[in-house]
């Protein structure tokens, strides 16, 4: 049970405090309700590029990192398709330094041309390192475009193309900032060796005077139900063929989310899972096989992806996979299988909750979804899932017309 207190400043900033006096450290986590899905389709990669610019100095503090390092702190950030999250860990004695730094960059950035020019280059190198200069680096670029025809999940957080990043202008940066980086679109979590009373005072002092901003009203085009199976073939200079299939699944708040999450574990969560046992170990068709999903806020994709053993044809691999899918649709999982993945979820949550940083970001995330207290009822949601529900979800999900298949061929 994770205890926390919650209050809202007059400018709309939501603040959560989670105290744990067993650590000498404090964590300050600021989540902004903006991700790659909120980007203009002609300026993709912007939310992530922006995350880099957040370290280029704010209106009153020319350098973000130096004072934090002087305080013995460390920080980082990440951008997803749904949100952008910044976090600091530092000795609890120096908590106020984190308030000073985070509040100033919420107030306003320095918006400097040099920083923009450099970070454009840095992000382009990141794009090359992870997506262009890596074998199979373009699989998700292609799969997202295949599976999402209208929803902005059709591009990755790094962006659709290098040109969108190369052409980013300072005025666009400013507009993005004042639209999304405001108290009413943010959640602040302070955790670790901190006292709630002191956090209230510090939050009022540093964040209280920041203008509220306008609440961002998200109106994204939702993906219509898919009515026809989609396939795409690709060729690339890679050593092994790869098969990647996705199916549209529930969003994070959908009623079938927990059952679908457990279904992915039953199929591909670990070495004793069905697909690994059957297709990698028994039939020796795949070098490896993964089954996963992104847990996105809007309806997401359940994915099965694997590289084929040399000499195995794509048709044979896909057929064998289909037999496993048909089996779970027809029979559902056994009680023992379901219990196994529930146990795994229980232990995963216990291990995650060991770190204050992870507790802080979970609180922020559940608050964004609707209520930080859901963090404490999550395990029960999983416990409630039945084998019948998983069978039902499998049948809804694994319909041919709901599927997207990428055949990625190695050119010899």
């Amino acid at each position, binding site marked *: 049970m994770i205890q926390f207190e919650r209050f809202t400043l007059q400018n709309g900033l939501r603040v959560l405090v989670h105290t*744990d006096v*067993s*650590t*000498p*450290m404090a964590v300050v986590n600021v989540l902004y309700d903006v991700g790659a899905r909120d980007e203009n389709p002609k300026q993709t990669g912007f939310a992530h590029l922006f995350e880099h610019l957040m370290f280029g100095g704010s209106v*009153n*503090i020319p350098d973000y*990192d*130096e*004072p934090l*390092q*002087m*305080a*013995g*702190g*460390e920080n980082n950030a990440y951008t997803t398709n749904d949100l952008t999250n910044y976090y600091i860990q*530092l*000795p609890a*004695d*120096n908590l*106020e*330094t984190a*308030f*000073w730094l985070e*509040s*100033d960059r919420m107030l306003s950035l320095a918006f400097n041309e040099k920083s923009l020019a*450099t970070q454009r*280059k*840095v992000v382009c*190198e990141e794009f*090359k*390192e992870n997506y*262009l*200069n890596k074998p199979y680096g373009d699989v998700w670029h292609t799969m997202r475009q295949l599976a999402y025809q209208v929803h902005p999940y059709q591009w990755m957080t790094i962006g659709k193309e290098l040109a969108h990043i190369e052409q980013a202008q300072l005025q666009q940066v400013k507009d993005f900032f004042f639209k999304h980086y405001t108290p009413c679109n943010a959640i602040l979590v302070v955790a670790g060796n901190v006292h709630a009373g002191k956090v209230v005072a510090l939050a009022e002092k540093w964040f209280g*005077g920041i203008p509220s901003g306008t609440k961002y009203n998200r109106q994204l085009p939702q993906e219509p139900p898919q009515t026809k199976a989609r396939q795409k073939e690709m060729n690339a200079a*890679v*050593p092994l063929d790869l098969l990647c299939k996705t199916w549209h699944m529930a969003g994070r708040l959908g009623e079938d989310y927990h059952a679908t999450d457990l279904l992915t574990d039953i199929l591909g*969560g*670990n*070495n*004793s*899972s069905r697909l690994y*046992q059957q297709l990698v*170990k028994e039939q*020796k068709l795949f*070098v*490896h096989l993964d089954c996963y999903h992104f847990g996105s806020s809007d309806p997401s994709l359940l994915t099965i992806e694997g*590289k084929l*053993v040399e000499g195995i044809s794509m048709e044979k691999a896909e057929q064998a996979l289909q037999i496993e899918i048909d089996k779970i649709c027809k029979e559902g999982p056994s009680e023992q299988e379901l219990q*196994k993945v529930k*146990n*795994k*979820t229980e*232990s*995963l949550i*216990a*291990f995650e909750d*060991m*770190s*204050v940083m992870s507790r802080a970001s979970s609180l922020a995330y559940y608050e964004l979804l609707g209520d930080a207290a859901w963090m404490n009822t999550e395990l029960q949601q999983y416990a409630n899932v039945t084998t019948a529900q998983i069978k039902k979800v499998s049948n809804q999900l694994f319909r041919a017309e709901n599927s997207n298949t990428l055949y990625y061929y190695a050119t010899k």
Partner: protein
Amino acid sequence: MNLLNRKQAPPLVDAVHYQLELKPCEQHKLDNGVPVYMIDAGAEEVLQLEWVFWAGNSYEEQNLVAATTNYLLKNGTATKSSYQIDEQVDYLGAYLNRSCFNEQATLTLHCLSKHVEQLLPLVREVLTDAVFPEEELRLYKQNMKQRLNVNLRKCDFVAGRLIDTYLFGEAHPYGKYSSAEAYDALQRDQLVSFYDRYYRNGQFALFVAGKIPAGLIGTLNQLFGDLPNSAQTPPPHLAKQAIQKKYRIENDASGIQGAIRIARPFPNRHHADFIPALVLNTVFGGFFGSRLMSNIREDKGYTYGVHSYILNLQQTSAWMISTEAGKDVCEATIAEVYSEMEQLRTTLISEEELSLVRNYMMGGLLGDLDGPFQLIGRWKNLILNELPPAHFYKTIDTIRNCSAEQLRELARQYLQPAEFYELVVI
């Protein structure tokens, strides 16, 4: 509210003043003399148990035998198939992992504390009764060779292998690498005999951390206190450094980035220069605010990240600079690395910068000592490197007190471009 001066930083407690303590670690001995190191702490009902065997690469007579034996430990025993072992571990939401390093090889169990008694007999079975089925080995060879083919297309993977061979030589455990031929040459009986000598009869230690249930030490003694635990010495290995210093390799004609590695041999943790070098390295390329990062990423934008570090090796080590940079700026990046070395050799680090690095390192240490798994990790590092706990306090003393002059001297001694191997793989 209007009185708030945002240009003024709040007062700081300098992290250098923290009285950092390495919380003690309980030490037990099993009947066979195997040491058990324990940290009983943490709020969650979780445990980590690590069996550390002296069974790393250094002990093998043929390439990949140690790593393969370690990998296939849990792929079948006399009474259980690989699937049955995985199923039993997975059913309890536990994780049983293995890793092979240069000197040691480990088996690690993560589980909820309430399940540990059910899982330990299985671990014993894996450590005393593994059978290395022929079929498991065949599948392992096939899949590892194919994975290797994928990795060989990555410039960073290729660069990482090559730089180690320049530093240590291909025959040395720190320099040798995998190949399709080495996988093909693996035989089941080699694994069986390596297992028999270095696991079943081999020397090991146990590291345990988390919420420790009553009676755990008794159970450990019952299940692991009767194993032979006989020490083995590895065959001697001499590092053989390459003569040629500079390499440019084209691995992928269509590559758009180059993997850059610049490295020189460096002594191990027992050398007097090791700890001050950690401070100098932090200034040079050891954190986000380092000279290399500020210059090459934050000023020039040549790369997504550039780092320097001293390799975590026990016998002898190396000092490495590593980055991936745009193809057209690789040479410019290398020039900047050398120019930063020159700065450190010629100009004293300002007290302001040094003080920032001291605080950053102390704050990092404070965070690193937080939590049972982190604590046991620090103890394990001392113990496996045969260092006394005083080494920890010496590190803190050096972070606090080393002078700019001392660091400049160290830079003059070690950050000499002529001593470095230099490699770009595109």
